[in-house]
């Protein structure tokens, strides 16, 4: 104790407060030094940006077909990436297609992240019966492989954008809840939570300030690792005819309608899948980098 006292005394008059860099700027700095994160982050940024600003890119109408110019090869003048089975411009359809595929892939994870975090924190913090009810329900959903569950719910609800989002959200709530519950349970009995409780903080304040602040980042990183699966599943539902309906531009659906063209123009038929592949690769690599930058272990 004495040494602490002397060191404080020795530090002299208080200097101007230097704000610490903070956790997130540290994470950002580490991400900027990670070449993988930089390259694939830029790629993903470009894909998402192109999808958002598709109407302003001077593309052709993705829905205007022409019976005379069907399945033109890549590099055809006027159609840089060729045309599809109804003569629609592939470049335009691929860029427009990203809008629905990304939306259908990312929204369910976002919703599941919000719902799963609430359920998991509730189960982990309250414990007891609440925990049992929530976690045993989650266990039941874990008894389904995710692909099967997504297809089962979508098939029962019927095709459509909303139904597809609902079914994928339901698929991702259980895994996120499970992660949220386990990190919350590990935080709940730490000293600073006890200290907050003893000093009179209400349960709500303890959860909001002390628990959420410490569990949100690991849950978030886990959720980002689900985005690529979600996007592949969303496109897969459309591929099966359970998601988006024609003539909408969506990568999974395009892959399905172009399937019969693999004998005529295989390159064109493969393009929507290339987009799904690249995007999902970017999402996975970024999620890995984020996990490393945030120093989170499973």
């Amino acid at each position, binding site marked *: 104790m004495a040494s602490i006292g002397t060191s404080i005394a020795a530090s002299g008059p208080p200097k101007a407060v230097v704000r610490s860099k903070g956790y997130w700027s540290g994470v950002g700095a580490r991400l900027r030094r990670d070449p993988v994160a930089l390259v694939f982050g830029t790629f993903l940024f470009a894909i998402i940006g192109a999808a958002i600003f598709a109407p302003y890119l001077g593309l052709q109408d993705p829905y205007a077909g022409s019976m005379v110019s069907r399945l033109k090869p890549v590099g055809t003048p006027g159609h840089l990436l060729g045309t599809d089975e109804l003569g629609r411009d592939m470049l335009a359809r691929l860029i427009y297609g990203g809008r629905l595929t990304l939306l259908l892939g990312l929204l369910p994870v976002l919703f599941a992240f919000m719902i799963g975090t609430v359920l998991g924190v509730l189960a982990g913090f309250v414990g007891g019966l609440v925990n049992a009810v929530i976690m045993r329900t989650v266990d039941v959903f874990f*008894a389904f492989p995710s692909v099967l569950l997504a297809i089962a719910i979508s098939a029962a609800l019927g095709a459509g954008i909303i139904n597809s989002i609902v079914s994928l959200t339901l698929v991702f709530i259980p895994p996120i809840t499970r992660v949220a519950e386990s990190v919350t349970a590990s935080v709940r009995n730490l000293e600073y939570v006890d200290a907050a409780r003893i000093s009179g903080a209400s349960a709500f304040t303890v959860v909001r300030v002390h628990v959420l602040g410490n569990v949100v980042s690991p849950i978030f990183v886990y959720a980002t690792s689900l985005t690529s699966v979600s996007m592949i599943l969303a496109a897969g539902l459309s591929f099966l005819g*359970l998601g988006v309906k024609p003539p909408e531009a969506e990568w999974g659906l395009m892959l399905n309608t172009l399937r019969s063209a693999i004998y005529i123009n295989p390159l064109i038929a493969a393009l929507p*899948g290339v987009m799904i592949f690249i995007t999902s690769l970017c999402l996975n690599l970024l999620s890995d980098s984020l996990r490393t930058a945030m120093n989170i272990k499973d």
Partner: protein
Amino acid sequence: MLIYFLQRLVSVIPVALGVSLICFMLVHIAPGDPLTAVMPVDATAEQQAEMRAAYGFDKPLPVQFVLWLGNALTGDLGTSIASGRPVADEVMRAVGNSLILAFFASAIGFPLGILFGFLAGTYKNGVVDKVITGIAIAGVSVPNYWLGMVLVVIFSVSLGWLPSMGAGPGGSTEWAWDWEHLRFIILPAITLAAVPMGIVTRTVRALVADIRSNDFVTALYAKGLMSRHVVAHVIRNAAPTALSVVGIQLGYLLGGSILIETVFNWPGTGFLLSNAIFQRDLPLLQGTILVLALFFVVTNLLVDLAQPLIDPRIRRT
């Protein structure tokens, strides 16, 4: 140890019940009546009521569930609305074909994944690791239904080496272990193996790297043990976790092959499911999903039961 086995066995019962409840509810979250899709548009109200009574849809939901569960336990999964045949027969025929496909996909994906993961974990941050990590991340990122199409383009359309779809000359019912049939399974099996291969590689790599960073490994080297003897210790420590990952992936192979079976017209459960979806044949959908989910539950149970046999740490608790 006996207590562990019994606990695991008993814990499966509520999960299996919950799974049945979800499968049962699938039919009832569907918009409209399960029968509206197949009923002729000009059916009178009386005819509709008669049909509903025939399928038992006029009773209250809990009663329907108990009746349905009772039937399911005796092996009666109802009647397919589209074909009029018993659902159980259709599912059982298809499950065999899916199992064959899952078997070949496991034979390709798991040994490769374990080998790759082991190499990458052992030579972490080296060239081998970089290459393998790249393959693995491509494996987990690839939309496998697209990979299937690409393989068909390369090996069936361009090279003409392998057939692009179907299950061979015997059709969907007669499978034989000869080249005439095996050549039909190569492309779907490789396609199906891609994702589990990637996942197993990534898990085993992290696992092996983690184990090798332990003090006991340093001690083994310090003691003068040669690398190949140290490897034996690492394998012994990695085996339990690797087994549980492989077990879960095995369950996924069976239930997750629906998209691939659609691409290759493989006459398994996935193909059955996509037919059920197109014809809105809800009893068939329900029955197939129930059987697949229960398969998954049983695989997970078997993995859990096998766990203490290779991991002495569980045996002691």
